[in-house]
């Protein structure tokens, strides 16, 4: 029975087997997984996952200590509401590509906030080479504002080799 939900954040140097070891330990303690994100970021493996179980927080930490240490990871725990089945569909996607320019994420997201755009998901990455890095960011979110208004808000950021594209996301349901 799932009484308590926690958001676990785990970070460590990437190596094979982390996910298998961690999820096996959770399973053995009767913990359930909710929504998760597991991702390699710059040589680190990062895990954020909703975990539900009967355990109190101290008990959960104690139970996970062996596997966390064996995998050389760090653990952070937050008690949360386990609100599943509440996915929100994005209706706008914004893509930013180009030269790596200081402050671009802050500028783009400030402009989006001003037009009432709510970010659901943001992924940014550095592609290209060490010599010539290319910055790529994709933002999916929800806005009531028409696409033209969002484009206009971002227009000023299209300079110095940075490109910004705004597209409607029409999710096909069938």
């Amino acid at each position, binding site marked *: 029975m799932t009484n308590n939900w926690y958001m676990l954040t785990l970070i460590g140097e990437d190596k094979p087997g982390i996910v298998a070891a961690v999820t096996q330990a959770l399973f053995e303690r009767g913990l359930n997984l909710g929504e998760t994100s597991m991702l390699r970021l710059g040589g680190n493996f990062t895990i954020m996952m909703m975990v539900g179980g009967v355990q109190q927080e101290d008990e959960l930490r104690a139970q996970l200590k062996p596997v966390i240490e064996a995998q050389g990871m760090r653990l952070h725990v937050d008690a949360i509401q386990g609100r599943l089945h509440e996915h929100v569909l994005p209706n706008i996607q914004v893509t930013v590509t180009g030269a790596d320019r200081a402050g671009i994420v802050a500028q783009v997201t400030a402009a989006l906030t001003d037009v009432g755009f709510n970010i659901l998901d943001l992924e940014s990455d550095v592609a290209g080479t060490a010599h010539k890095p290319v910055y790529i960011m994709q933002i999916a979110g929800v806005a009531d504002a028409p696409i033209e208004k969002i484009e206009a808000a971002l227009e000023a950021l299209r300079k110095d080799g940075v490109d910004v594209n705004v597209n409607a996301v*029409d999710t096909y349901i069938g």
Partner: protein
Amino acid sequence: MAILDILTLPDPALKQVSEAVTEFDDALRAFIADLEETRRNGPAAVGIAAPQVGYFKRVVIIDCSTTRKPVPNHGYLVLVNPEITHWEGYEPGREGCLSVPDYTGNVIRATRIHLVARDPNGEPLEFDMEGYEARAVQHEIDHLDGLLFVDRVVSRRTDLFKRKVYQKGGGS
């Protein structure tokens, strides 16, 4: 007319391959009327395939004329024994499914297709389709072949850095 029950994951029947329609009779057309009523009842459903209601014949319905932002489309279409004969290009787009509630993901589909099919009376149909409507047909034909979009979902990260060529996914 009746609203039919929709099979949802993990019902193994969703993996069943549907058979070609051979009898274009009143029974077929009565079923199509029920399938359309079921589609209209579904939350925001643009398309539906017969096997989603447990009828394992190659029949799909799509209607891409009601998107928020208009897209090239051929309106309301009943496609019997649909078959894609030509694929071109590929692009990611977001999909969800009546058979997989509360989940959406990005799927790579062919951008342009040529489609042949029959109408409910057995008359031949032929279309060139693009974009959203081409996506609709590919999603629904997958159902006829026992495939769900969840098996084709890619992350946006994967899509950007490992562009992969669209692989012909059945239907012919």
